[in-house]
């Protein structure tokens, strides 16, 4: 009895320990599953939009995950067709000397005689919106389509309206040739009309862009796309279709360049001016310090909607006429205007001040004995130590400038070339969204998000530090 009790107690304790360990494991497992679920939810829209930006019609219903553009077999076919169309396996096209072979398979149920489809190269605009106003060359004016030839016939069964039906599969081949000399065209559209509703479209060399009129017409936006041209149709359209009316340059390229210029300029001015101001506020003694600090807090609290009214007028008049020094009467619709008004933000100064206060004074005092002046002490001793804070500030400033919407919307209105990416995307949305042409909008949106995402993934550490210094901008 006296021996059994401790034994039982020990067994009991062992069991409890094992039980506790099991619970810990289970809890960790559940937390991982939940985290995975949450991140799927929060990444979901972005990922699904990226996937759908490859589709010809991102509004297809029901939305599919298996996109034909992601099938390697289609890539190979698209590359072969691109080579046949313009000796360009990557980006395709339709150039003199082209001889594009294309096959379509139909199913004719027993009792109907299979007949070849009528295949034409239609005159079709690449899309609605901005692209529709530009003069383009039509492939239809240069193409000749050979009559459809039967190449294969075999019997089998196919599902028609939910039921299995016996009949014949017939494959037809057509060749599209470029007649004579002429310009290289970017795409080669094709329409194949079945002889009757009874004859059902089954498959073709590349899947059709859409089936029209209850499956009677198989319609292709481009049958010589090339591998990249096939997968990134919408991305190519983003660059190619929206062009400036005056210069003919790609709008999206201009917007990207503008966004980069503004963001880089703002990062440089902010790094320099905010660290100078932050250093003075943290280290130097001078009258008016408390007032300046109050102003910094005040400036961070003022909504953009209060200050934009006066700032708009100040830029309109070229900053009290100072802009005439370099020959500009107004700074509206100029990148300089956006940069000058946002050279250095109060928040950035605040971050740098906080950081410099955390550096021990002794470091500088050692340099002081060497007889260096204030600027040398700042630029050679203190600034090199501020690398983590400067890193955080770079990320935050770049992200803020890149994503900024309200202020560029006020300042940059005409011409289209002068806009930045976010307000350019609004132009896209107004031009294409109303016609339901979402492929191009999504492709533009996804591309404009890439720089910040790359920056974030690479410099995540700095980004998190920035949040902890400044409390984030919300």
């Amino acid at each position, binding site marked *: 009895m006296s021996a059994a009790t401790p034994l039982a107690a020990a067994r009991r304790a062992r069991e409890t320990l094992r039980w506790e360990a099991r619970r810990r494991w289970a809890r960790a497992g559940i937390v991982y599953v939940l985290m995975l679920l949450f991140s799927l939810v929060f990444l979901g829209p972005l990922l699904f939009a990226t996937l759908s930006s490859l589709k010809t019609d991102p509004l297809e219903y029901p939305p599919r995950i298996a996109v034909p553009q992601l099938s390697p077999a289609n890539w190979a076919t698209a590359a072969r067709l691109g080579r046949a169309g313009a000796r360009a396996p990557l980006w395709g096209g339709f150039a003199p000397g082209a001889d594009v072979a294309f096959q379509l398979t139909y199913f004719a149920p027993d009792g109907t005689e299979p007949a070849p489809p009528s295949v034409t190269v239609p005159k079709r605009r690449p899309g609605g919106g901005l692209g529709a106003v530009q003069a383009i060359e039509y492939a239809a004016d240069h193409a000749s389509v050979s009559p459809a030839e039967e190449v294969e016939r075999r019997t089998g069964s196919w599902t028609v309206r939910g039921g299995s039906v016996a009949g014949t599969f017939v494959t037809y081949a057509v060749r599209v040739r470029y007649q004579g000399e002429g310009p290289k065209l970017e795409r080669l559209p094709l329409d194949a009309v079945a002889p009757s509703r009874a004859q059902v479209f089954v498959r073709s060399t590349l899947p059709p862009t859409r089936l029209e009129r209850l499956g009677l017409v198989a319609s292709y936006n481009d049958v010589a796309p090339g591998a990249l041209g096939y997968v990134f149709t919408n991305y190519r359209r983003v660059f190619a279709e929206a062009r400036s009316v005056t210069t003919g340059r790609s709008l999206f390229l201009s917007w990207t360049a503008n966004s980069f210029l503004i963001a880089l300029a703002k990062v440089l001015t902010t790094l320099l001016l905010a660290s100078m101001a932050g250093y003075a506020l943290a280290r130097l003694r001078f009258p008016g310090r408390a007032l300046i600090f109050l102003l910094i807090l005040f*400036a961070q609290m003022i*909504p953009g909607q209060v200050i934009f009214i006066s700032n708009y007028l100040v830029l309109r008049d070229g900053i009290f006429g100072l802009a005439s020094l370099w020959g500009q009467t107004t700074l509206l619709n100029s990148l300089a205007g956006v940069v000058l008004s946002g050279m250095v933000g*109060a928040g950035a100064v605040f971050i740098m001040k906080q950081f410099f206060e955390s550096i021990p004074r002794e470091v500088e005092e050692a340099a002081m004995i060497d007889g260096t002046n204030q600027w040398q002490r700042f630029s050679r001793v203190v600034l090199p130590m501020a690398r983590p804070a400067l890193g955080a500030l770079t990320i935050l400033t770049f992200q803020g400038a890149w994503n900024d919407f309200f202020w560029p919307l006020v300042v940059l209105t005409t011409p289209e070339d002068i806009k930045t990416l976010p307000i350019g995307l609004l132009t896209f949305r107004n031009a294409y969204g109303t016609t339901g042409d979402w492929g191009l909008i999504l492709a533009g949106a996804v591309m404009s998000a890439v720089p910040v995402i790359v920056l*974030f993934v690479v410099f995540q550490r700095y980004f998190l530090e920035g949040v902890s210094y400044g409390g984030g901008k919300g």
Partner: protein
Amino acid sequence: MNVRRREVIAAYLFLAPFLVTLAIFFVYATARAVYFSFTDYDLFNAPTWIGLRNYANLFRDDLFLTALRNSLVFAAVVTSVQTFGALVMASVLNQRVRGLNFFRAAFYMPSITSSVVITLIFLWMYQRRGLFNYLLTQLLANLPLIGMFVLVLAAAQVVQVLLERARGLSVRWSDPALLVVSLVVATTGTTALVLLGLVAPRTVAPVDFVWLQTRQEVPGAFPGFLRAPVPLIAIMLQNIFTTVPTFMLMFLAALQGVPSSYYEAASLDGATPVQQFFYITIPAVQPVTFLVVTLGLIGTLQMFDQVAIFGNAVPLRSVITLAYFIYNRMFPGAQLPEVGFASAAAMFLALLTLVIVLLQRLFIRSEGNL
């Protein structure tokens, strides 16, 4: 003495570029907005002083009142839902696990991406044949399966807990080890029932809910100033989606600083997880709650981007906010700008933000002291 003076000169030289920017683009700008708000000004004729008339007119302007209602409803709903949601998510995830950095990146993604990109994506998903209506359709079609899963899950958990208690072990209804077993049972059970053909998804007509082009307000039974137009709710959902993960990470960081011994002690005293949430978690993260609510209020009261991007896809009245109202009066398109009126509305927005932030500060402080 000489050294002191040189220090002062150096300080102002270091500060000069910043001070010039601050003076022109903040101090002068704010002062001018205050001045304009008392004048009648259309950019072309010189401003004329009209006293408080702009402010009085604000409250006679139908569109302004709509914008005010929308802004207040938007700020209240979004701030409270996202704060509470973020806190609940953080306390569910409050575990020391490896690989948090990967998840952190995923959680930050919506808030580092520009509001334009996120809004465009959501606008696309809100189309009548968009992803949201598709997911709703799927949810309705699969209700029998989901119901069956929940039923089996609950039954398995109850049976297990009762068995363990019969063995004399004190286990909670939410015991994680048993929950894992129950989840496995529920998954295999539901799959088996589907394979046997006892449970099947229903066939439902595709949901065709109009998110955008509608004047509908919900909940219909509420008085006008408590209702929210459907398109505004669409923007609310989007805003919550973007900010919840960031705030969740802020709460999570605060929670990881709470000693786990607090929870263990409470657990020994028999406190349920819900009690632990209200009596340990909420007081422990109070400073972060303050920050999250402040940031949330400022961000939501000044919401502009989403309204501008939704644009003509929605009726203007259903989504207009104070920030957009101001912009709209400053750049009204074909009409003359009403700079004075816009300035008055802007001053109102600034004061409103200040007052609400101060009020919540009082409120959260007193909560914390209790």
